[in-house]
C-alpha cells in the first residue's frame, strides 16, 4: 500500500519525501483546493520544483484541485489543472464533475483521482465515474465502516485510497454547510472550513474561549486539551446538558486496521494535514511508515502515544470505520 502524505509548503514537501512518503499531495495558493489558508500552498514554480524533487526520489506528486468551481470563474480551476499538468504532477485529485470532464478532455494522460470531497460512497457511484471520466483512483469518504471499505474494494473498477490518520470531518464531506452557515465560507467552494478571518481566541480568566463568527464554539478550562474552532466540534448546551452535540474534538486513527485494508486490496493510505507543520508531517509519516514496514515483516509495531500527542484534543477515534451507531 502506498503512503500518501500531505504538504502545505515546499519545505514540508521535502520533509515528507525524506520521511518515507510514496506520494505527496499539495495544492495551489488559491481557492481551488480545500486548504486555502494564509501563507500555505504552492505557486506554479514551487510545484514544478517539488515534483522534480519528488520524481528524483521515486516519489509521486498529487495535486488537490478539489473544491467546486464557482459559476463564472471556472477559468481559475481550468488553469490549476493545466498548471498541474505542466508542473509534472503524477495525478490530480478532483471532486467537481465538470472539472473532471475538462481534465479528461484536455489532459487525458494525467491521472485523475476522485477526491474525498466528491463523497463517492458506493460502488455504483464510483464505477459510473470510472466509465464517464476515466478516474484511476477513488479517495473513499470517511463515512464507511471497515467492512464497507472491503465491499467497495471488491467491486470498484479503480484503485482505492483511504484516510488512516488526521483531522476528521463531520462525515458529510463535500456536502457540509456548517462553516458556510457561520462564516459565509465553506471548504467546498472557498477551500476553507472555519476560515481564520472569522476565528478568535480569548482568555476569560483561566479559561480559553474559541469563537467562530458570532458563535462561541468552546470554552476550555485550564489544561484541558483544545480542538479546532469548527461548529461540528463545538461544545453546546442541548437539553440542559453541555457537551459535544455533533462530534468530539479528536483525530482519526485507524492504523489498527492496516492488515484488513491490505487484505481488501486498498491501494493507498492517506494522511490528513496539509495545514499542519513540518514536525507533524515528519513524525506522522515516520510512524506510519514504521507500522507499514512492521506489517510487511509480520510484526506489531504500535506507538499510539506519539500520534495522540499530535491529535486534535490529544485524542483519537476510529470514526465510522468502527461504527457503533445507526
Amino acid at each position, binding site marked *: 500500500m502506498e503512503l500518501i502524505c500531505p504538504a*502545505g*509548503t*515546499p*519545505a*514540508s514537501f521535502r520533509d515528507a519525501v525524506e520521511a518515507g512518503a510514496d506520494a505527496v499531495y499539495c495544492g495551489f495558493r488559491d481557492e481551488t483546493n480545500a486548504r486555502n*489558508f*494564509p*501563507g*500555505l500552498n504552492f505557486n506554479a514554480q514551487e510545484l514544478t520544483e517539488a515534483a522534480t524533487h519528488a520524481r528524483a526520489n521515486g516519489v509521486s506528486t498529487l495535486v488537490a484541485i478539489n473544491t467546486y468551481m464557482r459559476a463564472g470563474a471556472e477559468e481559475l480551476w481550468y488553469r490549476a489543472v493545466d498548471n498541474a499538468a505542466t508542473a509534472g504532477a503524477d495525478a490530480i485529485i478532483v471532486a467537481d464533475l465538470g472539472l473532471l470532464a475538462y481534465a479528461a478532455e484536455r489532459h487525458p494522460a494525467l491521472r485523475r483521482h476522485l477526491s474525498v470531497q466528491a463523497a463517492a460512497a458506493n460502488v455504483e457511484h464510483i464505477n459510473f465515474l470510472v466509465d464517464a471520466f476515466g478516474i484511476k483512483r477513488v479517495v473513499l469518504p470517511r463515512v464507511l465502516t471497515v467492512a464497507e471499505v472491503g465491499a467497495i474494494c471488491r467491486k470498484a473498477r479503480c484503485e482505492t485510497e483511504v484516510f488512516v490518520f488526521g483531522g476528521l470531518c463531520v462525515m458529510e464531506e463535500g456536502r457540509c454547510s456548517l462553516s458556510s452557515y457561520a462564516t459565509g465560507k465553506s471548504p467546498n467552494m472557498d477551500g476553507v472550513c472555519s*476560515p*481564520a*478571518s472569522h*476565528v*478568535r*481566541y*480569548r*482568555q476569560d480568566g483561566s479559561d*480559553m474561549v474559541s469563537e467562530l463568527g458570532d458563535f462561541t464554539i468552546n470554552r*476550555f478550562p*485550564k*489544561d*484541558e*486539551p*483544545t*480542538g479546532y474552532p469548527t461548529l461540528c466540534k463545538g461544545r453546546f448546551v442541548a437539553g440542559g446538558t453541555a457537551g459535544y452535540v455533533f462530534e468530539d474534538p479528536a483525530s482519526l486513527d485507524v492504523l489498527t486496521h492496516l492488515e484488513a485494508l491490505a487484505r481488501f486490496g486498498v491501494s493507498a493510505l492517506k494522511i490528513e494535514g496539509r*495545514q*499542519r*507543520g*513540518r*514536525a*507533524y508531517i*515528519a*513524525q506522522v509519516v515516520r510512524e506510519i511508515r514504521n507500522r507499514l514496514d512492521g506489517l510487511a515483516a509480520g510484526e506489531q509495531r504500535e506507538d499510539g502515544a506519539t500520534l495522540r*500527542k*499530535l*491529535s*486534535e*484534543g*490529544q485524542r483519537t477515534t476510529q470514526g465510522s470505520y468502527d461504527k457503533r451507531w445507526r
Partner: protein
Amino acid sequence: MDLPRFVRLLLRPMPVAAIQLVAQASLDRVVARHPQLFDRLREYENRRFAIVATDLGLCFIVVPRSRRVSVQRGTSVPKADVRIAGSLLTLLSLAEGRLDGDAEFFARGLSIEGDMEAALALRNAMEDCRLDLPTDLGSAAGPLSRPVERGLSGIRSYLLSHGGDRWN
C-alpha cells in the same frame, strides 16, 4: 518545555536594551538569509506581532515590514494585532519547525489571540524558511562563524535534551 532554571536565572536580569540588541541582530540575519519569508507573509507583513516568552516575562514586538523588533518586560501587550505566547523554548522550536504549532496549541503549550490570518501566515512563512538558528545567526560572525555555529548548536542540543523527547 521550560528552560532549565539556571538559564532562566541567567537571562532574567539581562537589561532589556541588551536583549533587544540580540533580538534585532537575529531578526536582521533571518531576514537577510530568508527573503522568501515575505512572499508568504504578503499583506500580513505590516501586522504588529507580539511574541511573548511567558517563562522569561518578555515580549518581543515585531513588525516584519519595518524589519524592527522591540522588547519590553511583561506579558500583556496593549497594542498588537496578534499575540502569540509560550515558553521561549517552545517559541524557538516552532520557529525552527521542530514542533507542530497545532499540536502545541492543542496541548495548551501555546496561546494565540488576535488576527488569526496573520498568525497563520507567519507560522506558514517561517515553516517554509527551514530556519536553523545556529547556522543563520552564526553566519553573522564572519571568520568565527563556524565556531559560533558549533557553540550555538551545542547550546540548542542541551536545551532540547532538557525539554524532553517531543522534538522532530
